[in-house]
């Protein structure tokens, strides 16, 4: 049988962790290409591959274990200086990662199945093992000394202890066979040891013990002032312990057994036979478990939470925010009615306090939904490298501001637009090395992705030092494709012409490549960003490069909105769309071919009377206007009254209503009234 019966929960945890390891590998392997001498980095990569091998092997995923084994094999050779970090090696490693991702996709869907891993395996072996890959010897029993040796921090601690003259002991306990309580006993022992000194390391780790990933042995290294005999007696007193050995730390044993990790596929099959024997035999893979656990330590202080649950909490808090405003309003009303009344004064104090706490809670919830944008950025070095390699470009990729936090929902939604922009930057922006040299630029181009906060918004900037966007080329292409007329194109400023790249149906590349021509165009980029209440701006200089700036709200759950009244309803307009507001003087309004337009300081824009969307065909005053900008097109909205600006909590209209054109959702105002949120982009299309 290939895989033991694994429960869904276990599989989910495995896949989640494996994904993290893969992400780590992805980033690190790209870095390794540039930092071939970075020993720590190499060690980290090795450990991640090893962890994957261990955890996949433990669950019986043979293909995955085999592939990671070959990666580990190659990496080990690099570590020992037997293999150089070459682009070919990096390709082979990255190819293996793709194979692993593929395997994981199948695992997520059910079974490891028939994913063919022979290609990445062959690629790795061709590089790592040009000769034949023979079988290896049996794996010696894992010793805690080797584990500790691999952990620089633990070694340092031990060295310091020994230097200070204190004692460092190694404890090895074996439980009676077939005890059902080994995890409990191991935990007791570790607790016992902790009370007598400091446990530097244990095998299995405390995490694994608590997860009941334990065989019949427990090894631990402790720093203690107590004599070895006393420690031995204390451990022996624990039930179910068959034997205990306590000895002084022997540094000579703490040399990693490199040969062990250096076996080939023959040995791996053996590994798995052992694993398949069931939990009793799992003690033999303790080392793998330990390393898997050591990777977890970093995330120990965090809790995974279901996104839906988080969203549900966010909704509740959103309602609290609304109620807080109402309570404040009612309290104010009571105050003016019963001035000086003690109960009302108390109420006011309580309301103020509750209000403050609700505010903090709201901020806290918003924070909880935030992720550093680095979680997204970290996926890009690989992308840039792949595109650069397949197009023959030389590109140096920098990121900045990875710590900038942003709503996770926003992160999800800007991923594809950013991928598109990055591909474009490398594929169309950066020139080939020859062309760059001819233009007097360094052969290696630069692509820089930065994120920062600016007045409650997040600004993402993508700069390249490539050839820039050819305004004339865009203009010609747009005319040829019938997007604009020749006259219109000729009247356009440089900037306006460049902005045409956001029009649908336009691609400036002389030939559509596999990389950039994937059906998503710049129009989709702008639309995706605008759907988030964001703005996409392009700035380009011929021969010098282009900068794309994306301005986004920090969160999708709330936004700053301008409230306006039309007929009897209140509407909220996202402030990010609002260019200006003012009186709608009748002399501003003109009629062109039966359509009303507003002539505002020489700019002609369509006029949309908001009253037409309300069901009652009441003619209202419409004395005011709000100029909104969608893309580069301003439109004047006629409204009856301009109200205030406020933070608007977005609520869905629900499935029963579904999508109503021109309406993006609803919000409940401080006085309990419902305001509809205008979807400015689709509203204009309805006009």
């Amino acid at each position, binding site marked *: 049988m290939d895989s033991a019966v694994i429960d869904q929960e276990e599989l989910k945890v495995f896949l989640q962790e494996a994904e993290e390891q893969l992400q780590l590998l992805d980033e690190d392997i790209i870095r390794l290409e540039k930092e071939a001498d970075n020993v720590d980095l190499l060690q980290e990569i090795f450990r991640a591959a090893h962890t994957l091998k261990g955890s996949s092997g433990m669950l019986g995923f043979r293909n995955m274990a085999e592939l990671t084994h070959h990666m580990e094999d190659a990496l080990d050779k690099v570590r020992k200086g037997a293999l150089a970090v070459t682009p070919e090696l990096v390709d082979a490693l990255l190819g293996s990662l793709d194979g692993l991702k593929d395997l994981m996709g199948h695992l997520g869907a059910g079974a490891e199945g028939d994913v063919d891993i022979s290609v990445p395996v062959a690629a790795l072996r061709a590089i790592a093992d040009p000769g034949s890959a023979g079988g290896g010897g049996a794996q010696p029993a894992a010793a805690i000394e080797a584990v500790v040796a691999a952990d620089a921090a633990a070694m340092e601690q031990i060295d310091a202890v020994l230097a200070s003259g204190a004692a460092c002991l190694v404890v090895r306990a074996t439980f009676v066979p077939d005890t059902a309580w080994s995890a409990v006993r191991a935990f007791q022992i570790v607790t016992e040891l902790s009370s007598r000194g400091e446990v530097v390391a244990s095998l299995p780790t405390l995490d694994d013990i608590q997860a009941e990933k334990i065989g019949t042995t427990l090894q631990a290294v402790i720093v203690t002032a107590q004599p070895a005999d006393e420690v031995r007696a204390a451990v022996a007193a624990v039930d179910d312990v068959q034997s205990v050995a306590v000895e002084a730390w022997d540094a000579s044993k703490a040399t990693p057994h490199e040969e062990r990790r250096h076996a080939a596929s023959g040995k791996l099959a053996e590994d798995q036979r052992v694993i398949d024997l069931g939990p009793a035999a799992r003690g033999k893979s303790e080392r793998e478990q330990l390393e898997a656990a050591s990777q977890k330590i970093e995330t120990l202080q965090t809790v995974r939470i279901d996104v839906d649950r988080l969203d549900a909490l966010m909704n509740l808090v959103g*309602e609290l925010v*609304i*109620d807080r405003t109402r309570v404040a309003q009612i309290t104010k009303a009571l105050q003016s009615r019963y001035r000086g009344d003690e109960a009302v004064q108390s109420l006011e104090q309580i309301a103020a306090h509750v209000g403050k706490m609700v505010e903090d809670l709201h901020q806290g919830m918003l924070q909880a939904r935030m992720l550093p944008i680095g979680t997204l950025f970290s996926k890009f070095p690989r992308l840039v490298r792949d595109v650069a390699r397949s197009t023959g470009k030389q590109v140096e990729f920098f990121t900045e501001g990875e710590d900038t936090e942003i709503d996770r929902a926003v992160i999800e939604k800007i991923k594809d637009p950013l991928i598109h922009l990055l591909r474009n930057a490398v594929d169309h922006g950066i020139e080939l090395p020859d062309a760059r040299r001819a233009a007097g630029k360094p052969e290696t181009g630069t692509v820089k992705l930065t994120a920062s906060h600016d007045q409650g918004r997040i600004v993402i900037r993508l700069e390249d030092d490539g050839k820039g966007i050819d305004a004339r080329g865009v203009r010609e292409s747009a005319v040829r494709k019938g997007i604009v007329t020749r006259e219109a194109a000729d009247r356009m400023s440089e900037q306006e012409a460049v902005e045409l790249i956001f029009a649908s149906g336009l691609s400036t590349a002389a030939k559509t490549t596999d990389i950039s021509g994937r059906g998503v165009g710049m129009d989709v980029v702008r639309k995706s960003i605008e759907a988030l209440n964001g703005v996409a701006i392009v700035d380009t200089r011929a021969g010098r490069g282009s900068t794309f700036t994306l301005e986004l709200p920090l969160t999708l759950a709330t936004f700053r909105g301008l409230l306006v009244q039309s007929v009897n*309803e209140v509407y909220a307009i996202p402030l990010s769309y609002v260019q200006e507001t003012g009186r709608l003087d009748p002399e501003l309004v003109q009629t062109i071919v039966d359509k009303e337009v507003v002539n505002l300081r020489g700019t002609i824009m369509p006029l949309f009377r908001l009253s037409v*969307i*309300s*069901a*009652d065909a009441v003619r209202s005053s419409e004395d005011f206007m709000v100029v909104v900008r969608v893309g580069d097109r301003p439109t004047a909205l006629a409204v009856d009254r301009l109200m205030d600006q406020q933070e608007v909590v977005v*609520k*869905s*209209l*629900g*499935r*029963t*209503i*579904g*999508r*109503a*054109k*021109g*309406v993006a959702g*609803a919000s*409940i105002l401080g006085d*309990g*009234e*419902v*305001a*509809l949120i205008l979807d400015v982009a689709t509203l204009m299309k*309805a006009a």
Partner: protein
Amino acid sequence: MNQAGVSAERQLVVFRLAQDVYGFDIQAVREIIRMQEITRVPNAPEQIEGVINLRGRICPIMDLRKRFDVAISEATAESRIVVVEIAGEDVGVIVDAVTEVLRVPGDRIQPPSSVVTTADTRVVEGIVNLGDRLIILVDLNTLLTSDDRAVFQEMELAAA
């Protein structure tokens, strides 16, 4: 649905709409509230009157008179909004008056027949014959027509 109704006793919230008397199965009824100001939603499906603020939540309001094609009258002091759960979502239904909560033996519920005066018999689960009067038992699951559902599916696909 009708088969289940044959044996079991059903409890109905009975309401009046124009000349007819209707009932909702009480299990689907979340609450009954007074008429309140409804915010109209432009471009919403025709039977949707608008939305209200139901204790901090947006609740869509449906006007059954538009759905059943009966005369639309002005709201009175007796008008109520019956909040029911349809396909996992709360929806308010405007009625002219809620008259009573009634226990009905299953064998009094007959399949819809020509007795029904509404234009759309698809939304009728059965007719409760109490001898002196008839109550039209509304099938909430079909209240949103198949056309509406197709629109939902389209939306959900688009959202996915």
